[in-house]
């Protein structure tokens, strides 16, 4: 099943990407080439097979740990904001979102 330019536009919007027209065309053909490869998956019988997320779970239960709900990190506000595009008085600046 081939994707259409409309699919590409919808997915790009979901991913918050803006593709130039020539990029849309190239992406469409590359992604369709890729999905031709993906179609092989349909032939595999996976009835009753559980999805595998943590690979070591294939040989035994893997418990994902939780930690105590306490602050463990020192306050590093300044170091954390060194790389921020726009900061004022310790706050991250974004374009106005509420009129």
């Amino acid at each position, binding site marked *: 099943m081939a994707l259409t330019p409309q699919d590409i536009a919808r997915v790009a919007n979901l*991913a918050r990407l803006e593709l130039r027209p020539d*990029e849309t065309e190239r992406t469409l053909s590359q992604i369709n080439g890729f999905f031709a490869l993906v179609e092989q998956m349909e032939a595999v019988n996976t009835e009753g097979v559980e*999805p*595998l997320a943590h690979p070591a779970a294939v040989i035994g239960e893997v418990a994902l740990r939780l930690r105590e709900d306490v602050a463990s990190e020192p306050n590093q506000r300044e*170091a954390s904001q060194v*790389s921020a*595009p726009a900061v004022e008085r310790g706050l991250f600046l974004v374009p106005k979102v509420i009129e």
Partner: protein
Amino acid sequence: MSGGLNNTELHDLGVAQLAAKLAAREVSSLEVTQHFLARIRQEQLGAFLATDADVSLAQAKAADTRLAAGERTPLLGVPLAHKDVFVTRDFPTTAGSKMLENYRSPFDATVVSRLGAQGAGMVTLGKLNCDEFAMGSGNDNSAYKPVKNPWDTGRIPGGSSGGSAAAVAARLVPAATGTDTGGSIRQPASLSGITGIKPTYGRCSRYGMVAFASSLDQAGPMARSALDCALLLSSMAGPDPDRDSTSLDLPAIDYAADLLAARPAGGDKPLKGLRIGLPKQFFGTGCAPDVLAAVRGALAEYEKLGATLVDVSLPLTELSIPVYYVIAPAEASSNLSRFDGVRYGHRAAHYTDLDDMYKKSRSEGFGDEATRRIMIGTYVLSHGYYDAYYLKAQKIRRLIAQDFQTAFTQCDIIAGPVSPTVAWKIGEKSDDPVANYRADIYTLSSSLAGLPGMSVPAGFGAGGMPVGLQLIGNYFKEAQLLGAAHQFQLATDWHLRQPPSL
């Protein structure tokens, strides 16, 4: 210069040898660090993205102080460099992307702090080039510059840890860290003629690795020998309970002591009893004859060492390509959604509103391959397609992992090629993503299964380019893999060969 060691020879020494000289106080960490920094300043391969001599020299002096005080730990004062996917407080971190240009992390990755001043006492020489967000097989997806293979500067070094592989091969560093999601340690190690190991998923903490595909990403060492990799892995591995919930609750092992203690009773048959499984799917027509010839030569050497070869089957090998290239982009699209131009990373100069700022910032910041994978990942996770693609792939992933368990009832380790060809020419595959994906065929299945795997120099193929032998172990069997590689390296000298241009 004390001890009579000629300074020009320092870069010929591996990690274990440098550590011994440092411990014997025949050379100082400062001298070693200055020597490597001088080589790095001259490098033309594009292997480094950042250096800072003041930082490195201060770390070396601190290591010398510890050495002078009598401290003796296995890696104290030995320099290395980190793949630019590991965040570092003292060096910029870009993950090979314009998105993170000038980014400075407020903390060190767990692997970095374990190897560094707070831990093993290694000295950081800088940050190594890689494919953008570790997405690539040729290091030609770096947003900054491609990396050249020191064996032939017209060719790629492999990827995504291409800077790490090239730097080790060119003797710019004695060792480097790498990350492996679908082969990104093993494949560049193979294509650049060095040794590298990807441990079991969860062995090393992922904390502070710029995330690509969280259920696959794993850190590992890259160096010239299995012994050197063992030394590094001993410090890198181990649980990180508060910071990586997927890290395995298994204590780190002294892998190097295991290797050095190995005094097999078998005499000239040190690997007597070791069963090596050869998956028939790894030895078909898809692999170039020159690569197969080198791999077969290495396997014959293993037989001489006492191992027996058995045929096994991994029937879903071909399927690992679509399964991986659904799962990894799905996880990538989720992980890379954090780059929104607000807290860190690139922000577009011109936009109309918040949504437009997100779109413009992300489109400007991400390169082609990252964009492609975000698109694929978003699509396979989107409403109506999740079951058919993502869930289906996760189910086949379990079948792939089960096939390995079946194979391991017949053998102890699995061997085959790492890559179907030797390193290709720069630019040769740059406009054909699917061709690049297909080249990962021999590394993807063990990544999906989360198994440890390594690449060991095994000879040379077309154009005099290096060929690696891939060894895959069962879960948590890094020591067995490193042992098998170490015995091979005691009997052969492929890992000691160096690029003719050096």
